[in-house]
């Protein structure tokens, strides 16, 4: 019973009923949009804002602070940040994805202007999915820690594709809605940009050196 999940439940269980502890944790996992089912120690540290939100529903502020402090002690070493996946369907998903991108950049020690560029790229790609596909799509943020940290931004959807991609990327296309400016702008903000588009959808992969 020493895996991170049980440990987290044990900490929460000191202040909440078992069912509420379960609730707070599974909700936090969902809200933090963590990929996969196995929780790591690093995940739990990163989920603190989501856990705090959950705790506030059940506990007074002073107790929330105590629980968070206990959490801190229980899960000390933060690992490198891990990949996050965001389904993009509504407008609020766009803002959630770009805020997460900024958070990841900050965790990786990026300068503010670089964090802003990366978040802007995410915002552009996510908004294109939101505006131009009926079925929505996905944004995936894959951070690489280390001496030369990077953020890989992937966007994919099964929308109708971008018919005039060449024109857009050559800067010859000006839409009234902004698709062209956003896509070309995103490309100009990153170190590497790949896009494939067709009748079955669009896949974009962009990499920012942080």
């Amino acid at each position, binding site marked *: 019973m020493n895996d991170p999940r049980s440990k987290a439940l044990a900490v929460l269980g000191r202040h909440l009923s078992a069912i509420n502890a379960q609730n707070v944790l599974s909700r936090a996992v969902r809200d933090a949009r963590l990929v996969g089912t196995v929780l790591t120690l690093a995940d739990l540290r990163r989920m603190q804002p989501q856990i705090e939100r959950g705790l506030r529903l059940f506990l007074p502020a002073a107790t929330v602070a105590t629980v968070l402090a206990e959490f801190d002690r229980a899960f000390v070493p933060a690992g490198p940040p891990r990949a996050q996946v965001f389904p993009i369907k509504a*407008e*609020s998903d766009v*803002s959630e994805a*770009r*805020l997460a991108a*900024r958070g990841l950049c900050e965790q990786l020690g990026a300068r*503010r*202007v670089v964090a*802003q*560029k990366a*978040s*802007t790229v995410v*915002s*552009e790609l996510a*908004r294109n999915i939101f505006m131009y596909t009926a079925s929505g799509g996905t944004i995936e943020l894959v951070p690489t820690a280390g001496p030369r940290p990077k953020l890989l931004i992937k966007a994919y959807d099964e929308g109708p594709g971008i018919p005039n991609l060449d024109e857009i990327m050559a*800067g010859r296309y000006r839409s009234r*809605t*902004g698709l062209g*400016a*956003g896509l*070309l*702008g*995103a490309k*100009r*903000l990153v170190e590497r940009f790949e896009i494939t588009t067709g009748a079955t959808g669009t896949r974009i992969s962009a990499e920012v050196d942080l």
Partner: protein
Amino acid sequence: MIQGTARIPIIRLWSLLLVPVQGELTDTHAEQLRHDVLAEIHAAGSSGLILDVTGLWMMDSHMCAVLTGLAQATALMGTRTIVCGINADTAITIQSMGLELRGVRTALTLEQALLAFGVQPPPDGIDDPLDEIAGFEHST
């Protein structure tokens, strides 16, 4: 984060309108803002609009389009718009992307935007009329 129900305030300053754009501006907010601003200009006969974006942490192409759209609509009513408060990071990002705020005047700060509309700064050492009303005494 500002939630979906928040409404952007529109502040009357003499013959001007000041709009502090902030938070996560959704399409619904943007549409509401455009409607409210145009209605206010019509009702008050405002001579200028200041969009202060100090409260925005980022501006993507969509946000630029929203702001230029608003400025163009007010221009149709004969009212000039100045956008102020774009910070250095945002300016660098917008410039790198090759975006432009077409037809929109910009100013560094709110003060400069007000000066551009002919508002004069208060002279130094002015007596505050509110002090007298409240009965405060100035020690000299």
